[in-house]
C-alpha cells in the first residue's frame, strides 16, 4: 500500500524540508513583524496606532491564499520585485515567506496585545516613575512579561502557520502539499495512503511544537 514511497520517485523528506524552512523563516519574520505591530497599536503616536489597527484588520480578514498569490503576482510578476533575484523557485519561496509573515504577523500582534493586557498597570507606572521612556518601558518591562503569558497562544499560531505553509503550493513552492498533489495524480490507487503519510508528516512537525511550547509556557510564566 505504501509502495509509492519506495519507488524513489518522490522526495518526501525534501518536500517536508521546504515546509520546515517555510515555517521557520515565516515564524521568525512574523514574530518580529507582529511585535512591531503590537508596539504600534499600544504606542502613543496616533498615526502608528491607526496604521497598526488598519493593517491588522485588513490583513487578518483577507484569505491567506489571496495574500500569498498577491505577493507572487503583484510584487514579483507585475512590479518585478524579487528580493535578491535567483531562480524562480527561490523567488517563489521568498514570496511565500513574505505573504505568510504579512498574514501571521497580525495573529502574533493580537496574541501579544492580549498578553500586554495581563501586565498590571502598576508595572508600567513604576517603570515610568523611574524615568524610563516609552520604548524602554515597552521593551524592558511590558513585552518580556507579555511574551511569557502568551507562549501557549503563540504555540497555536505557530501550529496554524506550519499548516498554512501548504498555501505556498498555490504559487508553485515545492513543499509537502505540492508533492502530495503530484503523488495523487500518479498514484490514484494509493489515495488514502498518501493522505495519511502527508498528514502524519505534519503531525510530526506540529505535535512536538505544541508539547514543547506548552512546557515552556509553564516554565516562563511570571509569578505574581
Amino acid at each position: 500500500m505504501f509502495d509509492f514511497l519506495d519507488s524513489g520517485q518522490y522526495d518526501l523528506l525534501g518536500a517536508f524540508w521546504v515546509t520546515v524552512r517555510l515555517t521557520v523563516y515565516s515564524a521568525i519574520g512574523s514574530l518580529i513583524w507582529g511585535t512591531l505591530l503590537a508596539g504600534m497599536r499600544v504606542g502613543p503616536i496616533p498615526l502608528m496606532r491607526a496604521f497598526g489597527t488598519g493593517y491588522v484588520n485588513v490583513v487578518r480578514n483577507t484569505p491567506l491564499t489571496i495574500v500569498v498569490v498577491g505577493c507572487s503576482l503583484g510584487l514579483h510578476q507585475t512590479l518585478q520585485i524579487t528580493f535578491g533575484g535567483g531562480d524562480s523557485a527561490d523567488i517563489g519561496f521568498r514570496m511565500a515567506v513574505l505573504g505568510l509573515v504579512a498574514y501571521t504577523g497580525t495573529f502574533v500582534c493580537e496574541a501579544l496585545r492580549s498578553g500586554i493586557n495581563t501586565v498590571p498597570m502598576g508595572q508600567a507606572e513604576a517603570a515610568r516613575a523611574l524615568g524610563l521612556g516609552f520604548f524602554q518601558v515597552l521593551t524592558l518591562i511590558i513585552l518580556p512579561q507579555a511574551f511569557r503569558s502568551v507562549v501557549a497562544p503563540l504555540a497555536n499560531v505557530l501550529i496554524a502557520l506550519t499548516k498554512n505553509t501548504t498555501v505556498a503550493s498555490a504559487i508553485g513552492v515545492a513543499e509537502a502539499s505540492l508533492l502530495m498533489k503530484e503523488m495523487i495524480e500518479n498514484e490514484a490507487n494509493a489515495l488514502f495512503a498518501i493522505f495519511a503519510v502527508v498528514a502524519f508528516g505534519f503531525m510530526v512537525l506540529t505535535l512536538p511544537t505544541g508539547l514543547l511550547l506548552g512546557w515552556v509556557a509553564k516554565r516562563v510564566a511570571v509569578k505574581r
Partner: protein
Amino acid sequence: MSGVAKTKGPGDDVPVSGDLVALSGVNKHFGALHVLQDIDLTIARGEVVVVIGPSGSGKSTLCRTINRLETIDSGAISIDGKPLPQEGRELARLRADVGMVFQSFNLFAHKTVLENVMLGQLKVRRTEKKAAEEKARALLDRVGVGSQCDKYPAQLSGGQQQRVAIARALAMDPKVILFDEPTSALDPEMINEVLEVMQQLARDGMTMVVVTHEMGFARSAANRVVFMADGRIVEEAAPEEFFSNPRSDRAKDFLSKILHH
C-alpha cells in the same frame, strides 16, 4: 470647611528658593468629580510632609500629579524650580529625580530583587554595571533585605517587597520620594518594618511626601501634616498642633473617628 487653616510649621522657615516641590492652583476632574480643587502646596528641601484624609479625598491623586502619573486640568506644578514638562524625554528625566513608592509595591515581576534595584541605574542613569550592583546591594542591606537579592518579588513578603521598592527608588538618588499609601496593602505585622525604614530616611534628611493612614508615623516623622477632604487641603499644621488642636470641624470629625476607639 472652606478656607485653609494654616499654622506655622517647620517648612515655613525655609526661604521660597528652598522649595523643592510647588503646586499652585492645581485642579483636576475625573469626569464630573472634581478630585483636586485649587491645591496650593509647597514642600521644602528636607521636609517630610504627611498627607492624610478620608478615602476619596484626593490625596493619592495629589501625590501622583507630582510626577505627572496623573495629568492636571489647570494650575502649575514645579520641581526644583522647573515646571513639570509635557510627556516625553524631559519628563522622563525629571521623573528620574522623583522617587515613587506605590501601595501595591509594583516591583518588576520578571526581574530579581537585585535587578529591580539596578534597572533604573543602568537604563536611566547609565551607571556602569559593577557600580550599579554594588550600590543596589548596599541599599538592599540598608533596608534589611540584603539576603534576598536573587529572589523574585513574588517570593518575598509584602513588607520585604515594599522595602525593595524603597531601595529601588533610593537607587536613583532622588531629590524627593513620593509614598502613595506605602503600608495600606500590608499585613499589620509588616507595617512597622516598612515604617522604620521610612523613619530612618526622614532622619537622614530625605524630602518625602507621604500619603498614609498611619497616624503614628505622621506624629513621629512628619514636619508638617496636610489634611485633605473632598479634593481640598483643609488644614496644614505641625503634627503635634494638628493632632492635639485641629482647627477645622472636618479635621476634628476625622480625628475623632480614627483616634478614639
